[in-house]
């Protein structure tokens, strides 16, 4: 296999060389490093030596010709003698002869590969570029007419009307809106230039009032000529369809919508109710739910609480809630079952490092789920105090923004109104929610002195609804079993903290 000698690069930024004259001719034998030819470049003149020993079999470029660096100029047939560097040479010297003929033309041919001949490569490439950007910044589902991009323009937004979805919103506010599934057409901006502020969104989430509900259909009627950018003119003329049409979620309208008749009373939907309706529908449609229930013998916990509650109440001014105990048991157990503290992200599951436990709180005519951040880092007393605090403020509509976001797992106290089994809806994007049902005195079979006896025990069911895309029954079952273990083996000496 002959070794190809190429025009070397004799200096930085040198791109070509002229063969001044050949010092050997075809048929000559050369030793390694014997001079082969003289080269002239714009920086240096030099003699180029043979890389290998052998016989000069071909001279490819004649005297006086200028070629680009890398162009094959000769071939040497290596003899049986010195083959020191020729192995590495042979590996490099695979230059196909075609290169030598028309090096200048080789490049466009390669570039053309995916497309047509050179002449058409240009327009084709341009076409591809133009085709590429599909409707890029896709309007968030909430905006009825995809005019979210206009939201920065101000224009009609200057009167603070979020109603057409053209109000200005910062990224942080948009994220909040997204996380709570809020209909932006219902938002009113009180910030500078009609901006919808975080407080505006917060207020919207917490305060649901018929006054606001009344305003909605009024505003819908009173906005017959919204700014030209809103083609869909979603707010129509009648209240009911207005409320519906304004719903931006891709919810197909129900097959038949009931209408009042006779002595029926219409109750307008509050903002909160609308939000709950929307979110629950969306979650139920996208998250495949499954359910598991177990029984927990809470006797030891109850006894412990009873023993400590008086002192605690005297010290803290309020009772110790069982919710706090369950939250602590849950956070301890979640560390061993991180998949229950995760989020589903289409092609992956994100295991959340923080443990931000949401506590479902019933408020007037609705439901809020404020979050205890890093609940695992609090003592039982700490969790208890937080629960009291957020419940109080939730009812007063005084929750902070950062208390409504970032939850990773939710605990739902259905027991306080007597439920013994429930099937809560997962608080997406979380993947699991745990209901603690009522603690009821029941006869139960326990083992005492090696024999089975019937005793009166404090029993509480725990029901867990979960996202079956992420979790399976057995996983959840094991998690619940571990929570149960913590509660059933509760150490009477546990400090409240």
């Amino acid at each position, binding site marked *: 296999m002959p070794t190809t000698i190429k025009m070397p690069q004799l200096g930085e930024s040198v791109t070509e060389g002229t063969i001044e004259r050949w010092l050997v001719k075809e048929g000559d034998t050369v030793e390694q490093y014997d001079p082969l030819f003289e080269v002239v470049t714009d920086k240096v003149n030099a003699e180029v030596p043979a890389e290998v020993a052998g016989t000069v079999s071909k001279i490819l470029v004649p005297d006086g010709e200028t070629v680009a660096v890398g162009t094959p100029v000769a071939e040497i047939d290596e003899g049986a003698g010195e083959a020191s560097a020729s192995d590495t040479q042979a590996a490099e010297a695979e230059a196909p002869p075609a290169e030598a003929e028309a090096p200048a033309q080789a490049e466009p041919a390669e570039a053309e590969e995916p497309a047509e001949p050179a002449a058409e490569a240009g327009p084709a490439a341009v076409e591809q570029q133009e085709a590429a950007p599909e409707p890029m910044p896709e309007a968030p589902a909430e905006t009825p007419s995809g005019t979210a991009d206009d939201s920065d323009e101000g224009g009609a937004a200057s009167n603070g009307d979020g109603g057409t979805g053209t109000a200005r919103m*910062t*990224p942080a*506010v948009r*994220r909040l809106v997204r996380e709570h599934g809020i209909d932006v057409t219902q938002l009113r901006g009180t*910030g*500078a230039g009609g901006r919808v*502020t*975080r407080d505006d969104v917060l207020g919207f989430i917490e305060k649901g009032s018929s006054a606001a509900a009344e305003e909605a259909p009024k505003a819908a009627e009173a906005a017959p000529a919204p700014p030209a950018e809103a083609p869909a003119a979603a707010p129509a003329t009648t209240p009911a369809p207005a409320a519906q049409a304004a719903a931006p979620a891709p919810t197909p309208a129900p097959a038949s919508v009931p209408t009042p008749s006779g002595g029926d009373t219409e109750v307008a939907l509050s903002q909160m109710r609308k939000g709950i309706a929307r979110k629950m529908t969306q979650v139920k449609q996208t998250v495949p739910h499954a359910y598991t229930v177990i029984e927990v013998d809470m006797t030891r916990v109850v006894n412990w609480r009873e023993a400590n509650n008086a002192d605690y109440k005297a010290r803290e001014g309020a009772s110790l809630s069982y919710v706090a105990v369950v939250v602590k048991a849950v956070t301890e157990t979640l560390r061993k079952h991180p998949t229950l503290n995760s989020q589903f992200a289409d092609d992956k599951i994100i295991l959340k490092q923080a443990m931000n436990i949401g506590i479902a709180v019933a408020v007037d005519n609705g439901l809020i789920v404020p979050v205890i951040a890093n609940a695992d880092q609090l003592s039982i007393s700490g969790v208890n105090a937080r629960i009291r605090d957020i419940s109080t403020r939730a009812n007063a509509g005084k929750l902070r923004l*950062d208390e409504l976001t970032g939850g990773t797992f939710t605990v739902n106290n259905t027991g306080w109104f007597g439920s013994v089994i429930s099937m809560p809806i997962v608080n997406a994007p979380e993947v699991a929610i745990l209901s603690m049902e009522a603690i009821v005195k029941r006869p139960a079979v326990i083992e005492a002195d090696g024999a089975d006896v019937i005793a009166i025990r404090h029993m509480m069911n725990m029901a867990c609804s979960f996202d079956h895309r992420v979790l399976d029954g057995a996983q959840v079952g094991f998690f619940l079993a571990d929570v149960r273990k913590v509660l059933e083996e509760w150490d009477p000496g546990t400090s409240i903290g």
Partner: protein
Amino acid sequence: MAELNMLEAIRLAMDEEMERDERVMVLGEDVGKKGGVFGATEGLWAKYGDKRVLDTPLTEAMIAGAAMGAAVYGLRPIAEMQFADFVYPAFNQIVSEISRLHYRSNGTFSAPMVIRMPYGGGVHGALYHSQSNETYFTSTVGLKVVAPGTPADAKALLKAAIRDPDPVMFFEHKKTYRLWKAEVPAGDTVLPIGKASVVREGKHLSIFCYGFMRTCALEAAETLAREDGVEAEVVDLRTLRPLDHETVLASVAKTGKALVVHEANRFGGFGAEVAATIAEKAFEHLDGPVTRLAGPEVPGVPFHHTLEDWFMVNPARIVAAARELAAY
């Protein structure tokens, strides 16, 4: 716990390190017998002698280059540039050599050394005794750049810099030298290089600053709280390179609004780096435009006090900028 000013804290750091490690030496103009033009090395020459507190000729390149040689040899030199304004003759050594030595030798050579420099204005020093030229060095890969804002931080960070295996540019704002005394923990307290500090918690906006601006920002925050009910979070960066991205981004995630403050001019200033990082990595948390408050685009602090006052970033300006951002 003693109450020390910035200068005393810096001096104490050097003294303690020199006592602890006989490889540590100081070199620079007037650092020996005179004790430094600001008094930063006062007393050290008498205590450690000529060979460890060395008065050099008036030669910045030599100060930096010889320090590198000594560091290569195994010493831990603290080189002083009399003013940051005069570091430029040493620039070749600092950037071409000191910052690159470790990388170019594939990790087989390193230059554990500190270059201390007084910087900043507000002392009637005019164009050549007031420069804030930290960005020449923050943009140089291979250097570490530190700018403490309190005596306690200065002492703990200078100790860290002296012990650091890499070259550290240590910026001391000269206006803070004797401005106030504060508590400095006794003993061997060392702060890690590369960690910022949330010195005041707040929820309405985050103010990122360093050096003298820390003092100004805290004062501004007090005013904002008192007069506007705006709670500003003040983050003292302390180290410029490497930047503590985690602390910066966490603060923005919390408040949604970022104001970066520095005395150096705005274009290409350090604030640009912080702002770009925030915009890239915390976009979803932004509740207002990332804003910089910086010195004017003139080549240095003019002398006349009216002109100097016009130049200097101060608490009132920070309050104004913060107010605007908070209201967005």
